[in-house]
């Protein structure tokens, strides 16, 4: 009996450690990004980091064009991913017959599992030439091309989270609406969707978070020109994102150089952005849950 109690204690400690490791990893990531990026702030004044010129060889480390590039691609991706993702989620959760549902869900999962380098590969060989000819541009390697592919990568996230949210709406809501003479469409649009809105909002935010952080695809298809985007035309020109800059340049810098520290600084900016997006998404979820508990009690 004693030996058994002893093993119970050991197991409890082990799984507890595993659980708390998640917190430890987030802290470690923050600490190590900070450690490697802090010298950048010492060596170059913050003012220089906020310039509009990124040209590391001559010591210009302005991250504004990179922020702008990430912003343009992300907005473009959202324009594709939000309507398609939410539309697909509504179709799968509310409209599709059972067999179609069983077929569509794994297919969307396949999209989620496609490696980003694979989409970049297809982007270079197929999509970029097509975009160049179809839109009559000097090059097909533009923010638009990246946004299309990135939108595709954000869709599975949006579909699965939004579909869960729609599924969680109690069936009685729908029955009540239908019983009052609403059509199925009115029920979806005015009852189910509003009832699931916090989950739907979370889905959109997580999808956008995914798009901001994508690296390989944008590095391969957006042309990598660090120009400050101005106006909507920027969508059809080459740009360069923060993620692509890190991936493309980290391999070539000397460890401990200014350039190296600045790349880590971009990393910490990305880390903080993703933290912001995810905290916001999480708080929506927690708030929604509290509201549901209030209604049910």
């Amino acid at each position, binding site marked *: 009996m004693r030996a058994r109690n002893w093993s119970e204690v050991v197991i409890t400690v082990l799984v507890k450690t595993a659980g708390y490791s*998640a917190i430890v990893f987030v802290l470690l990531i923050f600490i*190590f990004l900070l450690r490697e990026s802090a010298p950048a702030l010492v060596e170059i004044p913050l003012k220089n980091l906020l310039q509009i010129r990124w040209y590391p060889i001559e010591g210009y480390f302005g991250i504004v064009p990179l922020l702008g590039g990430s912003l343009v691609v992300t907005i473009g991706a959202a324009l594709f991913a939000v309507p398609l993702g939410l539309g*697909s989620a509504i179709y799968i959760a509310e409209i599709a017959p059972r067999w179609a549902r069983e077929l569509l869900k794994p297919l969307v999962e396949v999209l989620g599992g496609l*490696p980003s380098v*694979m989409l970049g590969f297809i982007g270079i060989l197929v999509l970029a030439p097509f975009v160049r000819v179809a839109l009559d541009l000097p090059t097909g390697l533009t923010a638009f091309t990246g946004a299309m592919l990135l939108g595709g990568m954000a869709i599975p996230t949006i579909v699965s989270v939004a579909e869960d949210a729609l599924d969680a709406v109690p069936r009685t809501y729908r029955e009540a609406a239908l019983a009052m*003479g609403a059509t199925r469409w009115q029920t979806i649009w005015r009852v189910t969707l509003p009832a699931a809105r916090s989950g739907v909002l979370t889905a959109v935010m997580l999808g956008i978070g995914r798009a*901001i*952080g994508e690296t390989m695809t944008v590095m391969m298809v957006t042309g990598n020109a660090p120009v400050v985007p101005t106006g909507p035309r920027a969508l059809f020109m080459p740009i360069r994102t923060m993620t692509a800059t890190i991936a493309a340049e980290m391999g070539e810098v000397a460890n401990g150089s200014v350039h190296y520290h600045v790349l880590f600084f971009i*990393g910490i900016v990305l880390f903080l952005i993703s933290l912001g997006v995810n905290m916001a998404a999480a708080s929506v979820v927690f708030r929604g849950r509290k509201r549901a508990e209030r209604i049910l009690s």
Partner: protein
Amino acid sequence: MSIARGRSARVRQRIQRLGFFGMTLAVLLTITPIVIIVGYIYAQGMPAISWTFLKDFPREGMRAGGILPAIVGTFWLTLGTGAIAVPLGVGAAIYLSEYAPDNRWTRAIRIAIINLAGIPSVVYGLFGLGIFVLFLQFGTSILAGSLTLAIMTLPVIISTTEEALRAVPNSFRVVSISLGGTQWQTIRRIVLPQALPGILTGVILGLERAAGETAPILFTAAAFFLPRLPTSAFDATMALPYHLFVISTQVPGMPIQIQYGTAVVLLTFVLSMNIVATVIRSRARARRQW
């Protein structure tokens, strides 16, 4: 009543048809490109696949020969990731589902997991470079790459495993405890076996993502070209996704056949994991007695 106000049944029917059409269109616009991309890659790449392509080393600056080191590298990286992420992730999920009290600390763990899931893959790469390659001096190695990928995969494994554990009805636990089982006995003999298919599905989907990732291994594990296979966990390695990136962007004059062939091998690697996960899940669902 306000829902139906003011519109004739025919108008409402027409709006419904329009709405359904829109949603169907969204699904088709999402699904069709996936099917086309997968089909196109196989159509273009299958002619390049041969026994020698799979078992030979690259030759002539990678413009000829096979991709064996990249296949082996991805295999080891995926295995290493699993060896680290599975015990840790399943353990964390067991804690959250079976042990954790509902308090501030547990909520902090959940928020940490949500944040881990959202951190960009290239930031994991930076972190891996900072901590494993440089600080712990593992160098650019399979070990550093696997550790980096494992931390990135952790949130997927934790959340899917927890979901699978929570799906086991509470009455199972109550019966086991009432028969004199301890908490760990109950988990190991009752809860885990019941949740196993769900856990496997989550683990495979997590590893599928790790196998296809490039950004986290760029600075932690991947080598441009190596004339031999890795012999220890401290060796750098070639890897399929990184190799596809290299030959499609960094090597001029690369034969298109080899590019598509590499894409086919990577796609097969990833898709077969996906299919296994889907099959396990649907078979378990059909056989479930509760």
